[in-house]
């Protein structure tokens, strides 16, 4: 697997990260270095090994269904550039 400049531009756009045109080729080269290193892992024989999403072997800790939080609107809105009547106010977004 390898990425080209176009893929880098697309990923950057999806992630809302500004990557100037002249940086895109360099980033593609760096990413390809990482990917080819990851590709080496494909040499390991994983037949009969379950795919895993975590290496710790712990199960997910759970919480009781009790309301313990909320009602802290001042903290929630503490950093907002604009709010009114308890709402966040943002530039208009319509589908």
């Amino acid at each position, binding site marked *: 697997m390898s990425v080209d400049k176009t893929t880098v531009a*697309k990923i950057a*756009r*999806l*992630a*809302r990260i500004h990557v100037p045109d002249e940086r895109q080729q360099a980033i593609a080269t760096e990413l390809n270095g990482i990917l080819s290193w990851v590709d080496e892992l494909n040499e390991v024989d994983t037949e009969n090994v379950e795919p*895993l*999403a*975590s290496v*710790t072997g*712990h*199960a*997910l*800790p*759970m*919480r*009781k*269904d*009790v*309301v*313990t*939080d*909320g*009602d*802290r*609107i001042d*903290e*929630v*809105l503490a950093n907002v550039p*604009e709010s*009114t*009547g*308890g*709402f*966040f*106010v*943002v*530039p*208009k*977004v*319509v*589908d």
Partner: protein
Amino acid sequence: MTSNLVSGATGDWEVVIGLEVHAQVSSNAKLFSGASATFGADPNQNVSLVDAAMPGMLPVINHECVRQAVRTGLGLKAEINLVSVFDRKNYFYADLPQGYQISQFKQPIVGEGTLRIDLPDGSSRNIGIERLHLEQDAGKSMHDQHPSKSYIDLNRTGVALMEIVSRPDMRSSIEAAAYVRKLRSILRYLGTCDGNMEEGSLRADVNVSVRRPGEALGTRTETKNLNSLRFIQQAIDFEVTRQIEIIEDGGEIDQETRLFDTTTGATRTMRSKEDAHDYRYFPDPDLLPLVIPQDEVNELAAALPELPDQIKDRLIGDYGLSAYDAAVITEERETALFYEAASAGHDRKLVANWMTVELFGALNKSGQTLTECNITPERLGGLVGLISDGTISGKIAKDVFAVMFETGGDAASIVEEKGLKQVSDSGAIEALIDAVIAENEDKVLEYRAGKDKLFGFFVGQVMKQSGGQANPGMVNQILRTKLDG
């Protein structure tokens, strides 16, 4: 069964429908935070720093939400995956402060199941369930409060949702509506979602395509966020007509997401960038795999209530109700429990008739719910009992029912108080008949001269004189003897 094919200008078309239903999990707190999951608080009141996605906040899963998903899976006769994984679905929107939704992509908590739908003609059909997964709801955006700004309320952000995905097994908008109706019914029986479509607790995305019968699947469109059975049917019917027209005119269907306009009943393309669906899912590094012990699944399975299909089968098999009546009575759990209590010890079919015709009719008219109204199961059972044992006629029973619905009280007391008891005393009926005959000598002569139709007139007169209380069977019999004899 009637054919579901739709005829176009150039021949018949088969409609293929799959549904993704988002059902809000009934719980006190949110899926990954301790903030309240209830509806209707002031803006941003039910928001924790986790929901607001403040840096460094970590999600901790709500055990009850997991149990609710398992219960639902069991209710859908589905495979429960003891190990499932949470993924991040990445997209940017103002009401999603994390920049991703925590969802389940490759390993959902519930796998394949089935749902039996009840169709208006009384027949049933099984629809495949592909999967059910847990995910976070997004916040609410208001776009109509300011000319150039949107207002965001994060109260709903992080509330647990079950996304329930069907197989593309439905072939008409009627089947799709029946699917959502049955799914809603099961969720409400289980207590895992309140099913309130108006408040958005249950909403559906519909995938629709058309094809020539027997051919490969056509290109589908997805119409999002339909929150009533009527809108689901309208959106599908509109899409079917639109797609057939395009194809018959030589065009092609774009695979796209569409929005439904509730005022016009039409769907339209959602304005969005082409790569809006590139979600770049990956396992959420903040959450370990979700492991459920088999013992817990067994415990939840053992505590599952009797579900609508089981009750419906019992009402048809044991009590002899029609498939239609049984489906109507079992759609809501309260109704089924009411029916069971009301009909115990009484004529089961007669109670079903009184419930579906008189009681539901009166509720529709008054706008009351079953639990609010004056009729209790005991009162309805009592009324039917009085009909069965001949104390009152069916006609009088309607009057008693109306009084009972208006003012409460039990049928026997109303009958007693208003003196409505059916008269089955042959002496009393004879006296009434004699009086009617004496008053109508001319008609008696005409009848005896061969004008048979007048018999009905005499019956009517006697019933009228008795205030509707005379036993109609006895009136007929005695009248016949007196006039003909």
